[in-house]
């Protein structure tokens, strides 16, 4: 084989390999606690398995496959956010169907990622990696009855850095998550049905109590609770 033919085969092999690359992005970052007066409510937060295990996999035009893991970082972000937004935050591992005593809750929030999309500079002819995340926030009554649900959209971008595509996707995702957290923190009280629900919870005695398997998570003022329902799904009050 001549040198030229060897060079051509090397180039062809490199091209094929580039088309087969799989890049994993276990999204990592830090989130600050929100600076606000905590709302005077005891709120449960339920993370569905689909959120905790959320992975986005996409093969882009260049043939490269991206696997972006978003579950763990979202749980950390929502813990931090809700921990600062409410007077008391309780982790509810399974939505309740029955009766319990001990910890009064005013409502249970459940965040869900509905969609995650990203674009690379080569796709948009720009200098940025961009990320869009669509969430669905749901508020349940303490007994697990649906109160309201609303969409939440977030956007983030990160300047393209030479040979650091993984960092850029990570950074754009973190920016989008901060955008979601900022939006939720600032607009939470203005969601009409949310405001109405929490107002109605004050003093009407409908808050459900929880006692089982209580232990602290992450920060001092948060508590993790396990309260098993019959099938782990919301039950009617």
């Amino acid at each position, binding site marked *: 084989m001549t040198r030229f033919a060897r060079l051509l085969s090397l180039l062809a092999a490199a091209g094929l390999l580039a088309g087969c690359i799989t890049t994993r992005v276990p999204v990592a970052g830090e989130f600050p606690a929100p600076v*606000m007066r905590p709302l005077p409510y005891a709120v449960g937060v339920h993370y569905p398995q689909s959120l905790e295990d959320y992975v986005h996999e996409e093969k882009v035009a260049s043939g490269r496959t991206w696997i972006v893991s978003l579950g763990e970082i979202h749980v950390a972000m929502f813990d931090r956010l809700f921990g600062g937004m409410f007077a008391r935050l309780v982790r509810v591992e399974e939505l309740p169907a029955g009766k319990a005593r001990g910890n009064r809750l005013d409502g249970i929030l459940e965040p869900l990622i509905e969609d995650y999309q990203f674009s690379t500079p080569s796709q948009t002819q720009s200098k*940025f990696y961009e990320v869009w995340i669509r969430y669905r926030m749901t508020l349940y009554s303490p007994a697990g009855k649906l109160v309201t649900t609303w969409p939440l959209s977030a*956007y983030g971008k990160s300047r393209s850095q030479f040979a650091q595509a993984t960092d850029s996707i990570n950074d754009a995702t973190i920016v989008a998550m901060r955008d979601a957290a900022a939006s939720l923190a600032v607009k939470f009280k203005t969601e009409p049905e949310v405001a109405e629900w929490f107002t109605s919870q004050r003093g009407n005695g409908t808050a459900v109590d929880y006692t089982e398997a209580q232990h602290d998570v992450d920060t001092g003022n948060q508590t993790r609770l396990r309260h098993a329902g019959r099938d782990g799904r919301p039950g009617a009050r």
Partner: protein
Amino acid sequence: MTSQVEQVRQRAASIADGESVVILARRHHSGRETEASFTECIGAALENGEASVDVHPEQAFMDSLFPWFEPRTAPLSADTLPTLLSEPVIAEKLAQTGVRYMVWVDGATEISEGAGSMTCAVSPGGGGCFGFTWWDKNSAYEASVWDLATYEDVGKISAAAQGTSYMPAVIVPIPLIARTQATACKGLADQLKDFLVVEP
């Protein structure tokens, strides 16, 4: 390369010992974004040399006041500061930072598509490039200075620089880059120092 710097001073401004400024990039535009390297350049220029000014790190400021200075929530005019800072928790956090002036920087450096041509080739015996290309760079930035003690917009400084970069290549390409962003940074930082008359 050409450059120009303009200043509009609406009110007197001065910074005392123990007070600092924070340089914040506007990031709410979808198509462009003020480069972090540009705000870092201004911060470094303010902190060094004669009449230096203490600069609070941008990210630390945004984190310590989260979520009030994110792209989605950041105030767009000084008029909204009284409402934001009427919340004692936010006002207290802001006071802890020691920041007296907030400098919002908006703008970007744009690069035109350019012209000319260059051909590069690699062979088993070696390689090289031949040709000549050039492109224009245009840096345009505006800084708005807000006084956090009086909740007023005390003035604006704009800096623009245009230049052409060249890259001749005879075997090895030699880039001759017009440093428009660095020029705009220096012009803006010098004017900011002049603006924030440092008390003796």
